[in-house]
């Protein structure tokens, strides 16, 4: 017996060229913020889809300050919440009410969403994920072998040691090194930790490290995609991102 949604998902994703999975085994390190900003800056140059796969703790609708929902035609069409930026979230169906689901249902949610969603011209898909290395991450690792995993760490020793474990699992499952995104969550930079062995190990263990800047008053930038794109430190991050892509 075969679940027909697997072929459905492949068909719907066949024109998506690039999948970026923003993930971390550590919570609160900035995955959603980074998903928000990466999709905002990438959509300057290409058609981007952004999905909130944190089903029980969705945040992207708040970051984008959107209450737009899908339209329907032979499946669902994610709304274009900004020029060349399409958005998918369970909040379309939950009306943002609390959802508690067991891990065994996560697989169904992912398959269902991806089997019915039309990505209409989307070339790059950015996926925000919940913390930990449980069902959502395992399902993504199963279905998105070719994805680029952007593993986010904050500048804390606890984060380094936890994130190393996720990196090791990604390497084992995909056979490739992920991209490390060091998020300067506290604004103190990374120099003070440069002698830490976990930190050293982390840098050695990733294909490339991107440094994500500390953002003062970040909440004032929610839903202000044009303003985000103008922040100098974000422009610098974008150049790093473009550079990484070319190598």
């Amino acid at each position: 017996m075969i679940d027909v949604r697997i072929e459905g998902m492949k068909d719907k994703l066949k024109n998506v060229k690039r999948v970026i999975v923003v993930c971390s085994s550590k919570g609160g390190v900035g995955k959603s913020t980074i998903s928000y900003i990466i999709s905002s800056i990438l959509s300057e140059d290409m058609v981007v889809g952004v999905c909130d796969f944190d089903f029980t703790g969705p945040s992207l609708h708040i970051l984008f300050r959107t209450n737009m929902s899908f339209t329907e035609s032979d499946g669902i069409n994610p709304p274009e919440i900004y020029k060349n930026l399409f958005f998918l979230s369970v909040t379309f169906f939950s009306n943002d009410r609390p959802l508690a689901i067991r891990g065994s249902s996560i697989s169904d949610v992912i398959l269902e969403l991806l089997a019915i969603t039309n990505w209409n011209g989307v070339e790059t898909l950015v996926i925000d994920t919940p913390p930990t290395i449980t069902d959502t991450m395992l399902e993504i690792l199963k279905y998105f072998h070719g994805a680029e995993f952007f593993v986010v760490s904050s500048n804390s020793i606890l984060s380094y040691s936890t994130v190393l474990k996720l990196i090791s699992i990604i390497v084992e499952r995909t056979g490739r090194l992920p991209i490390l995104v060091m998020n300067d969550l506290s604004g103190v930079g990374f120099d003070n930790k440069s002698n830490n062995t976990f930190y050293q190990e982390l840098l050695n263990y990733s294909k490339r490290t991107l440094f994500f800047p500390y953002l003062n008053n970040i909440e004032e930038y929610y839903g202000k995609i044009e303003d985000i794109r103008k922040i100098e430190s974000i422009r610098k991050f974008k150049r790093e991102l473009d550079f990484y892509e070319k190598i």
Partner: protein
Amino acid sequence: MHEFSLARATKDTIVNKYNGLHKFIIYIGQIQQIDIELFKQAMLDEIREFNIEVYFEEIPAKMKCNACQHEFIYDKTSLNSEEQENIHFLPEMIYIYIRCPNCKSNDFSIVEGRGIFIKPL
């Protein structure tokens, strides 16, 4: 309606996974609230040029409460049309809109009647 998408996915499964086989049964979980007639029609259109026979069986939805072990069926009468529509698109929304009739918990599992599966005959 996403019946057309599901019909295409079913045809793709037959072509890509069961190449060479001709007779199938398609199990349709009830929670999905698929319009069976529409799905059948869409399915017949999809396989028109193939030498394939398909049968359909709807599987009633059965839930079991993880808190009190009570078994119950999907009763949509208490739901408004928007809630039903949300469950139609994403059946796991049932955990938001439905409670165990015995103990009112929303910690239950769908035992049967979820998804669309295909099996060769």
